[in-house]
């Protein structure tokens, strides 16, 4: 009979570091104190989130078109779905809404194209997005040319207006801000003082004041024959207001680039605009991506302030719906939905900026 003289080697224990169990062990239950804290946290979260889920999802009413459809205890999303079109298009005429659809779809396509690194011809798409698209969007949305029925801006509203204001603000404030930031660091006293005055003026005034001034005061100073569109005035105000903030964010980035970078560019024979455009700004802007996106997000949310000059943006249009006598009492649903919409856009910007930061990271 064969006998062993040594013990059979112990088998390796099952790997507990991987999989769901492994993750739970490593992150939530590694030790008695952490396990206890995790349990408490889970209980508290459930207590807080369960009623919310019950209200928003489980007990909610989703189908129907009148308030009679809302019989349950939970949220009445019928309120939103019944006015969904108004929330998107505002008072834009029904027959012309395809124009908004085209602009929004094209915008989504352009943003996706520019945001996804694998897609080709970035330069041309970017050029179209900055030059062709605004003209096209302007012509399509406003109408009055090429047989398109004119839709005055007072009929614009809802998400479409919010996106218009936000896009113009974002696309306008960044380049103006960059120019102001460069101007503020200029060697030329006149340029520098002009930029300082511009920045300090716009930054020192509340946005609400800017909007009031744009809508109430400006018409007092210009002859009555000259009619500025109210939306246009608001857009210009918003653009200047945020470009002042942007300028200071960008200046922070410029400040952080060591002077050796500019010296090296000088030594290679580059002129001012090449030094800025090729060497200093790419590094500075990369550095302040968090600040830029922070400003974009603030801008996006503050578009809702246009409601005080009588423009019906996403939030205002939902608020207007609350006063509809057929639909009284659904304020919570309205505000929750508005918050969700704003959050989706802002969160997307935030995530995309984090992705860009990782992608542009070249230091090691």
């Amino acid at each position, binding site marked *: 009979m064969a006998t062993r003289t040594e013990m059979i080697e112990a088998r390796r224990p099952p790997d507990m570091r991987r999989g769901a169990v492994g993750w739970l062990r490593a992150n939530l239950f590694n030790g008695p104190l952490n396990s206890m804290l995790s349990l408490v946290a889970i209980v508290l979260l459930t207590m807080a989130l369960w009623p919310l889920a019950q209200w928003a999802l489980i007990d909610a009413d989703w189908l129907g078109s009148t308030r009679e459809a809302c019989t349950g205890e939970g949220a009445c999303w019928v309120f939103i779905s019944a006015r969904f079109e108004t929330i998107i298009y505002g008072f834009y005429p029904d027959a012309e809404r395809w124009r908004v659809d085209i602009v929004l779809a094209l915008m989504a396509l352009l943003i996706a194209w520019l945001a996804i690194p694998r897609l080709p011809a970035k330069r041309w798409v970017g050029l179209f997005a900055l030059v062709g698209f605004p003209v096209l969007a302007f012509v399509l949305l406003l109408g009055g040319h090429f047989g398109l029925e004119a839709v005055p801006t007072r009929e614009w509203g809802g998400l479409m207006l919010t996106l218009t204001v936000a896009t113009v603000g974002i696309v306008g404030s960044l380049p103006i801000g960059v120019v102001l930031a460069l101007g503020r660091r200029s060697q030329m006293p006149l340029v520098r003082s002009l930029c300082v005055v511009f920045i300090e003026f716009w930054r020192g005034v509340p946005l609400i004041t800017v909007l009031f001034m744009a809508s109430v005061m400006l018409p007092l100073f210009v002859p009555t024959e000259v009619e500025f569109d109210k939306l246009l005035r608001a857009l210009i105000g918003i653009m200047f207001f945020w470009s002042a903030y942007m300028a200071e964010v960008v200046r922070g980035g410029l400040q952080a680039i060591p002077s050796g970078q500019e010296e*090296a560019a000088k030594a*290679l024979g*580059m002129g*001012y605009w090449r030094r800025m455009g090729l*060497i200093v700004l790419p*590094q500075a802007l990369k550095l302040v991506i968090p600040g830029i996106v922070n400003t974009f997000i603030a801008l996006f949310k503050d578009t809702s302030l246009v409601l005080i000059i009588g423009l019906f943006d996403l939030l205002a249009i939902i608020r207007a719906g609350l006063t509809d006598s057929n639909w009284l009492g659904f304020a919570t649903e309205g505000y929750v939905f508005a918050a969700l919409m704003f959050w989706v856009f802002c969160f997307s910007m935030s995530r995309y900026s984090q992705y860009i930061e990782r992608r542009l990271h070249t*230091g090691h």
Partner: protein
Amino acid sequence: MTASNSASTPSPDSPMIQVEGLNKWYGDFHVLRDIDLTVARGERIVVCGPSGSGKSTLIRCFNHLEEHQQGRIVVDGVTMTQDVKRIEQIRRNVGMVFQHFNLFPHLSVLDNCCISQTWVQKKPRAEAEKTAMEFLERVQIADQAHKYPGQLSGGQQQRVAIARALCMRPEVMLFDEPTSALDPEMIKEVLDVMVELAHDGMTMLCVTHEMGFAKTVADRVIFMDQGQIIEQAPPETFFNNPESERTQLFLSQILGH
């Protein structure tokens, strides 16, 4: 360009750099005092001196990274003025290597070498890349061409910086303490490149504390102190029979250990 006070085609035996009565102040501080200096074509000059003696400031005046208040600087036949176009013309002829390399961290090694060729010299991209690879080959770093500066060691970065400057095919190269920020084991690889460059006949002005380099390649060593040129001589004379006491003191301090 208008040839008002500068010859458009400098003759081969005209000086590369000519400096007359150069004075510079930082506020009240007199950094450069009455500097006269002529650098011949193909000449290799080492500038040394204690820190704060104005040696870096001096060579930075030659491509207008520093502005002088008095005196005349003529580089390759072009007189330095306040005119931006003229300054940029001079800079295209003058390569510079910095103590802290100053590579562009957002561009790959290859792009660092190409950017000025394509944007300033307006060369086609393919031609610029060819030139870049040629010089990266010469500083023996061609295999790293697609990396970013942050991924390279200090010595490698400085060699890229030399290649980047050479890509513009300058007439003269300025080195501003090129090895001072390097770890000791990396100094040699950079000096080797500089020695090779010197043997190829490049006009060079080096601010450095590497006295071995000065002994092997310099045609002339210049000693500066308190903004003045105290002494200039060929390396044998300079190191063996320095005239001034200040030079002797400086040499005893840096060669003493």
